[in-house]
């Protein structure tokens, strides 16, 4: 999952160091346009449905947080 996620992220924004960046939202590294693009890619890639309630900074501030959110949504679907 991690590899797939990192692939999506680096394709979305090649200029960002997603391994080390921990405040992607709080520091405005990812903007709302990026988030919408990213959500659509994550939904397709991991067969999940990210809803507006999941769009909070804590879920998108780092690659780890995104991974945790994806896992949680996959478990909810099961």
């Amino acid at each position, binding site marked *: 999952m991690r590899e797939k996620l990192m692939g999506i992220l680096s394709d979305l924004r090649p200029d960002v160091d997603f391994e080390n960046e921990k405040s992607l939202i709080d520091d405005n590294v990812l903007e709302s346009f990026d988030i*919408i693009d990213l959500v659509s890619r994550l939904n397709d890639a991991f067969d999940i449905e990210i809803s*507006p*309630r999941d769009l909070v900074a804590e879920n998108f501030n780092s690659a780890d947080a995104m991974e945790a959110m994806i896992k949680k949504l996959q478990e909810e679907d099961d």
Partner: protein
Amino acid sequence: MDLNYFIDCMVKWWDQLSYTTWMYFGLLLPLTALIYQIVPRKGRRIVLLAASWFFFFSLSGLLLAANIAAAVFVWGTGRLLDSISNDKSLKRKQRKKKKKLVLTLAVVILLIVIVCFKYLDFIGLNIVRITQIAGLAFDWHILGLAVPIGISYYTLEAIAYLADVYWEKIPAEKSILNILLFMSFFPKLVEGPITRYSEAGKLFAGDGICENDVAEGYQRILWGLFKKLVIADHLAPAVSQLFDGEYMDGGVALFAALLFTLQEYMDFSGAIDIAIGSARVFGVRLSDNFRQPFYAKNASDFWRRWHITLGTFFRDYIFYPISLSKPAAKITEKARKIVGNGVSRFITPAIALFFVWLSNGLWHGPRWTYVFYGMYYFVLILFENIVEEPFLKLLELMHLKETSVPVRVFRYVKLFFIIIIGEMFFRADTLGKGIHMFKLIFTDLRFDIVVKHIQDIGIDRYGYLVIITGLIVVAFVETVKEAGISIRSKLMSLPVPLRFAFWYICIFAVIIFGAYGTGYDAADLVYAQF
């Protein structure tokens, strides 16, 4: 003194009650704080609610009933949403469907109320125009309804609260008292900042007032008064004369736009400082609404720094929900098949962005100039997002870095004109006037008239000196803040006599250089009308 005369004077003073009058920061706020502190912890919310209702009543009279009714309605709807969430006899999908229906109905009702108060005449008059074009006879009698103070702000807070309960981000509030207080809390009532329920916990805690909060609160209020009374109110008469005067050319239009931009920023951010400082007295920390907006690199960045709480409201409750909605996804999918990935990825955000900026324009009030203002930023921000990538590639080809001086200067100049032109349309009485002023910038740009009459527009030599000095002080503070340095910490590290000297200078600066008297109306706050 004759008692009747005294009562008359008090009534007159209260008629002018506003965040920038001494009755507010010198009487209402300290008196509320004093009673709040004396009363036992359990009763403190009642003290804040009583002060808030008193403040509301002073400004809007019996329309206070609209605020109370809205709060009761929101409380009940929140409880209903919560009970549906906890109803295990229903399946998940059924719960979701039922909750969606309740939320939709509640939001529609809240919007109908605000439309009835604020937009009926606008709608009626536009129907008259349309029917006239179509050759039909339709008449509309202007209702001129009084609007409950802060309705645009507390309605958004109510919608955000209900949406958060719907998404189960927060549990519904059990205490009706808390909701009543949340929707009428006097420091944020008139101009915001638009506050999320999840951030308001301290408001209900009833903690005792601490010395540090009072000091920081009043320091922030003083800073707000400085911006409002020393700068914004000195600019106000000139802005009125320039926009409403008989003479207009390109130079006058640009100068008017610049002065109004400065006036609006100092006025609105000053009022927000007073709101944040007042809440701080009770230990409540409201969100910042401005973050050095004139240091933005583009229009999107500007809106992340200007009226932040309105921007984040639209992002969370309009932009994201529309972007993630099924109809938007379907449209994007269809577009992807026709135009490919590159362009189609902008379609969903563009649809959502359109509704964000339409709402932004209409939220400011029932005027076409505001709708135009919203659409102006919709087009600009969408365009910026589309051209950002090619622009960076162009810089690479030119061996220029994004942080290099020429690029920064180019971006700053571009943004400067974007902002002041936007504010020019925002302030113009009619859209026609705004378009006329915009045209003149290109067809009749001359500065001799502005230079000749610069002292006949309501600001004399002394006024300019005060304004320019004030602006230098604000620019210095904003530059230091942008560099990540806390001025307060630096001040606190000064020896006590110096610290006190500094605050006394600030107090006297506001008293001596503030704009008072005939021609200046300290009671009017630009953003209170929205």
